[in-house]
């Protein structure tokens, strides 16, 4: 709770012209925002570019900022908006073919253990690809809901605000999304 209050406090200081407070907010939320966007668009360079836009918008909006909601909810609303716009602009489909090299490169960087055999690495990469494709196959709003629910551990009410819909709509989105994922990924247990 204290850190939530501190986020809003910091943002109010940013509103009053304190750029150091903005740097603290950036350090605290840069990772979660970029990781969320990466899982949404599945391309690291695009995720970082969208995240730059998110933080630019946060900074530009400082003068009108009011702490009516949790800072992270507001932040993820902007991030979701950016990701959905990018996907709806059709850039997602255009980038599908070029996804694999970057993801493959990222995966090898993520698994530093030298003891894993070639076979183990191949299995892990196949599982990773399967999970990534299952997420990518979800309709974009379901995808955003699952990512906020699973990786950001956001409450239904927060996801509802980020997606601009009701809590019951979020529950339905999640139920349908996990239903699809169970169909595709339950065998990975």
């Amino acid at each position: 709770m204290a850190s939530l209050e501190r986020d809003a406090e910091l943002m109010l200081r940013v509103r009053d012209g304190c750029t150091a407070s903005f740097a603290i907010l950036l350090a605290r939320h840069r990772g979660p925002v970029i990781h969320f966007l990466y899982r949404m668009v599945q391309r690291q360079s695009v995720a970082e570019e969208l995240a730059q836009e998110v933080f630019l918008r946060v900074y530009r909006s400082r003068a009108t900022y009011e702490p009516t909601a949790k800072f992270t909810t507001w932040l993820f609303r902007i991030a979701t908006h950016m990701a959905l716009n990018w996907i709806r602009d059709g850039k997602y489909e255009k980038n599908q073919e070029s996804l694999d090299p970057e993801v493959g490169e990222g995966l090898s960087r993520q698994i530093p253990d030298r003891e894993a055999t070639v076979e183990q690495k191949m299995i892990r990469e196949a599982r990773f690809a399967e999970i990534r494709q299952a997420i990518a196959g979800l309709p974009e709003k379901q995808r955003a809901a699952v990512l906020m629910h699973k990786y950001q551990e956001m409450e239904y009410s927060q996801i509802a605000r980020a997606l601009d819909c009701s809590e019951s709509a979020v529950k339905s989105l999640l139920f349908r999304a996990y239903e699809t994922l169970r169909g595709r990924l339950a065998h990975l247990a």
Partner: protein
Amino acid sequence: MFEVNRGNTKELRECPLRAGEENAAQLLDYCHHKLAPEPASAFERHMEHCPACRAFAESQMAVWNALDEFEAMPISEDFDQRLFARLDEQAAPWWSRVWNRMAASGPRIWRPAIPVAAVLLLAAGLWIHPFSASAPPTDPSIAKNPDHIDTEQVERTLEDMEMIRQFTVADAPNSNRDM
């Protein structure tokens, strides 16, 4: 929500899988260990007699664990640097940004015209605001008075304000719960 008292324990009134998507979301909470102890026990007692819910819980837990393998990628080391450079650039007056972009774009046929245009722009700036052109701000915090000629900035701000306005209106009734 879907419990009924039976002696000292609470039992589920009906199978949550048949109670609509919203109620079934409680099954998700159970699978992710987010359900309070009492409804969780009620659900466990229900599962003893309901193979459908048992299968649901098993596969949902498998999916939940599998999703942990979707790790994010490392973030570029110069992410903050790039962001602050953009903030600095936006804080600079519009004529300075035009100048920087033109200067960065390499030799072009119009390059000889740059100094002439810059002098004209500077003269126009001094004529309109005799004091503002003396010290171009580089600190983002100084960007409190955006140049009114910059239509791109105006459009962006309007867009941002609209997003915030929608957000504030949508949040107003629940604002205390989330703080």
